[in-house]
């Protein structure tokens, strides 16, 4: 019981808050510096998202933890906030502002955990005049099994990379096709992913195939009048709407090559809603549509191709709500303090007038 009380005291202490805040500052600086070599995604993953920061011992394959990661520090800080709020703050109108401030801070941390757990980042590359109705993951691959028998529609089944690596036989639901995975290999530097698979339809084998994004063409096989293809590609998600790039603009400061602005004028078409409208996407002004935010990310092909970063984050609103809560909480708290102070001042003045 005494040890539990100690843990509770430690968890609610202000020292823990300060230590966690200091650790977070160190992590932010280290992560910012690491982005030069590792890139933004890898650095954030290594320093901020993880529970521990790992380093490889030179000359060995051994990895050891060298620092608490942002996930662990954030979790401790979150527990500290919740525990301190429960222990110290009395439930009264006088302290209601501080309750709201704490709730806002807790929501801010919860929002970060929701983001790290649920945010999905994909890309949409589109050339001027093209219409695209899907997004692709720049970091995940999939084996696409496509039935191309129908003259109008294709049935595409995407088997994630992680499933290929962990399974030896995959039954593709909705098709009579099973895939026996013999070997999976990949090269992160060249982003080449290859897999040896043996398609089996109703017990009949169609031989072992090498499927790779380096081949540049799909494999195909036919069974009783039905034709399937196999290809390796970035993980794809089709959208119920499409975007057409009408114009990509790359503005420069006059007389220089220094970029001033990038923008994509797209036409959004959603047949299900009968919607057809133009939207201008430019730096920090994304197109938000059906839970996805399309940001201007990159460009290519002599300024005729635009690359949009597509972010789907169910917790995107939480930081905004938490900021409003913290602001409102501080306002309420200081209003109470102001009223108390004014009341005291009035009482003192009244006392001074009464005293002879």
């Amino acid at each position, binding site marked *: 019981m005494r040890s539990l009380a100690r843990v509770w005291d430690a968890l609610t202490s202000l020292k823990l808050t300060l230590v966690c805040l200091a650790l977070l500052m160190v992590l932010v600086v280290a992560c910012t510096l690491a982005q030069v070599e590792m890139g933004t995604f890898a650095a954030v993953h290594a320093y901020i998202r993880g529970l521990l920061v790992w380093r490889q011992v030179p000359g060995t394959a051994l990895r050891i933890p060298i620092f608490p990661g942002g996930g662990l520090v954030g979790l401790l800080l979150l527990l500290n906030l919740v525990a301190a709020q429960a222990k110290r703050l009395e439930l009264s109108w006088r302290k209601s502002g501080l309750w709201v401030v704490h709730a806002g801070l807790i929501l801010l941390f919860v929002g970060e955990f929701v983001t790290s757990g649920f945010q999905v980042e994909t890309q949409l590359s589109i050339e001027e005049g093209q219409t695209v109705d*899907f997004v692709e993951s720049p970091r995940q691959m999939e084996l696409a099994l496509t039935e191309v028998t129908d003259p109008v529609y294709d049935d595409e089944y995407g088997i994630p990379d992680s499933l290929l690596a962990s399974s030896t036989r995959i039954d593709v639901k909705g098709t009579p096709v099973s895939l026996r995975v013999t070997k999976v290999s990949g090269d992160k530097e060249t982003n080449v992913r290859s897999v040896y698979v043996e398609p089996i339809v109703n017990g009949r084998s169609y031989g072992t195939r090498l499927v790779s994004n380096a*081949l*540049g063409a799909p494999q195909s096989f036919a069974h009783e009048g039905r034709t399937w293809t196999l290809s390796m590609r970035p993980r794809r998600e089709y959208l119920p709407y499409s975007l057409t790039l009408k114009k990509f603009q790359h503005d420069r400061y006059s007389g220089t090559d220094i970029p001033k602005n990038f923008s994509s004028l797209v036409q959004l078409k959603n047949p299900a809603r009968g919607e057809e409208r133009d939207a201008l996407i430019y730096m920090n002004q994304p197109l938000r549509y059906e839970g996805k935010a399309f940001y201007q990310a990159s460009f290519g092909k002599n300024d005729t191709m635009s690359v949009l970063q597509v972010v789907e984050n169910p917790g995107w609103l939480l930081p905004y709500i938490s900021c409003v809560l913290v602001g409102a909480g501080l306002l309420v708290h200081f209003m109470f303090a102001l009223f108390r102070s004014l009341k005291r001042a009035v009482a003192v003045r009244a006392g001074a007038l009464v005293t002879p």
Partner: protein
Amino acid sequence: MRPSTVRAVTVQFLVFALASVLLLASGCRREEITHFRVRKASGAMDNSRCPVRPAPREYSPTGVVIWRERAEADAAQGLDRCGR
């Protein structure tokens, strides 16, 4: 209601809410086989992608050989790797 009861209920509620969010965040992302029925040639994003060709025969032992054979045949006819 006594203040201690209110506090106990508050703590339990906060801890429960926190644990639920963290468990959801860590355990709910699953990688599954996806299925999309799409109109043909809707893929305009990957410019290296070739149109699908019909299968040459019902059974082929190694796809690589087939594609090399096709590429050589296409090159002989002056066609690109997509057979255009």
